[in-house]
Structure formats: structure tokens, C-alpha cells
């Protein structure tokens, strides 16, 4: 299943719903473009929902990190929502679990943005 990325607004938080594969040549570039577009439009509170992401490779993981550093570098906040077991395990292996703020409840995640 190839990647799809859509966005929706919940209050002042933009939720990015990703699904399918976030890999080199597929979802990775889509995710980068989407986050850049959001920043360009002035959105600084971004919640990436990975609940339907069934596969991610090191490029996809790297893209999440790049999005995080780009957003925080522009005084924004980027958080993750609904990790599948596979993504959760890979973030633990790469020790990125400590870098990202991760939520499993969307309403609470939205409220957590300052």
C-alpha cells in the first residue's frame, strides 16, 4: 500500500494523517512536502498521526526527525500520535522515543500543545 498524507485542523493544531508506507521514494518526500507547506502557511502546531502507517524505513524515520528539527527550529511544535507496534519498535531501536513527544489519544495530544 503506497502512502497517503492528508491534513485536518483541530482547533489551532494541524493533524497530519499518514497512512501506508513512509519509505524512500514513497511517503518520505510527501511527508516532507506536507510539513513544509504547513510551515509556509504559518501552521506551527503539528500532530502527525501514524496510526495507519504499516511500514517505515530509515528514510522515513529520518524524515520524521528532519520534520521535527525544522518545525522546532521555527519555534513550532511537532508531536506524534498513534504509533503502530512496528513504528514504536523502530523508534525504540533508534532511541528516538526520547526525542519525540508521543501520544495515543488525539484529544489529549491536541490539548498538550501550548
Amino acid at each position, binding site marked *: 500500500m503506497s502512502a497517503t498524507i492528508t491534513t485536518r485542523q483541530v482547533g489551532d493544531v494541524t493533524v497530519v494523517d499518514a497512512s501506508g508506507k513512509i*519509505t524512500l521514494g514513497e511517503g518520505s518526500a510527501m511527508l516532507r512536502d506536507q510539513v513544509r507547506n504547513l510551515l509556509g502557511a504559518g501552521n506551527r502546531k503539528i500532530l502527525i498521526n501514524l496510526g495507519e502507517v504499516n511500514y517505515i524505513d*530509515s528514510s522515513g524515520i*529520518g524524515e520524521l526527525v528532519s520534520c521535527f*528539527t525544522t518545525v522546532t527550529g521555527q519555534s513550532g511544535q511537532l508531536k506524534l500520535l498513534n504509533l503502530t507496534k512496528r513504528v514504536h519498535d523502530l523508534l525504540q*531501536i*533508534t*532511541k528516538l522515543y526520547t526525542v519525540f513527544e508521543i501520544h495515543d489519544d488525539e484529544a489529549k495530544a491536541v490539548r498538550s500543545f501550548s
Partner: protein
Amino acid sequence: MPGTLDTSLESNLESVNKAEALCVDACKQIGLDEDGCMDLGLAVREAMINAVAHGNKYDTAKQVRLILESRADSLRITIIDQGDGFDLNRVPDPTEGDNLLRGSGRGLLLIQTFVDEFTVKKTIGGGAEVTLVKYTISD
């Protein structure tokens, strides 16, 4: 089912996907479970990305050789590129310090996590030859 597949692939992303799919098929044939197949498929994907992108730099004149050896107790995958090779000991640890926030450099960590043996050699031509081994029966 024991057997060997030895093929040359072009230096592009299609080859990465093809190698991963071939590996997952071979995993199923030797009886690895679904998670095991996905893990080893990811390891092969990462090794192929290294070969295609970092080794051959997507040069259409260069090939990646993929050798899949199915044995009774293991699957051995060898990937050979025509780049400049690399020294595993000189690759930065992506989990340390500032490396944690880099946008790349995690492929080798994932490979080493998901295989039982991982070796890197330099070929006579100067490219990298990496071998991944996964055993079906653990001690």
C-alpha cells in the same frame, strides 16, 4: 527450499523494492514468521539503499549484484555495489549525541538489529560487499 538466486540489478529505487520483495519471498519459503520476514526485508532494503544511493550514487552505468542463498537453517543475502566501499568502524553511531537529530544514518543500525550476522568487505574493484545472515533456528 535450499537454492541460490544470483542477479544483477540497476541502481534505482525499483531495484531496492525488488530485492526486498525477493528476500521476503525467500523468508517465507524457509519458514520465518511474518515479523521475521518483514524485519529481514527491511534489513535488505536498507542494504540495497546503501548500495544504490551511497555506493553507486544512482549511476545507471553501475549495477548491484544480489545473491540470495536459501539454506536449510538460514538465509544468506549478499549485496555488492560498484562504489567506493565503506569502513563499518567509521560510521557514526546514530543513537549518540547530536547524531540523534540527524536526518539520515540509521540504515546500518537497522540492518544490524535484524540479522544474526552482518559483514562488510571491500571488493577487488573497490565497492562494498555486505553479507546478511538470518538463521531460522536460534540457540
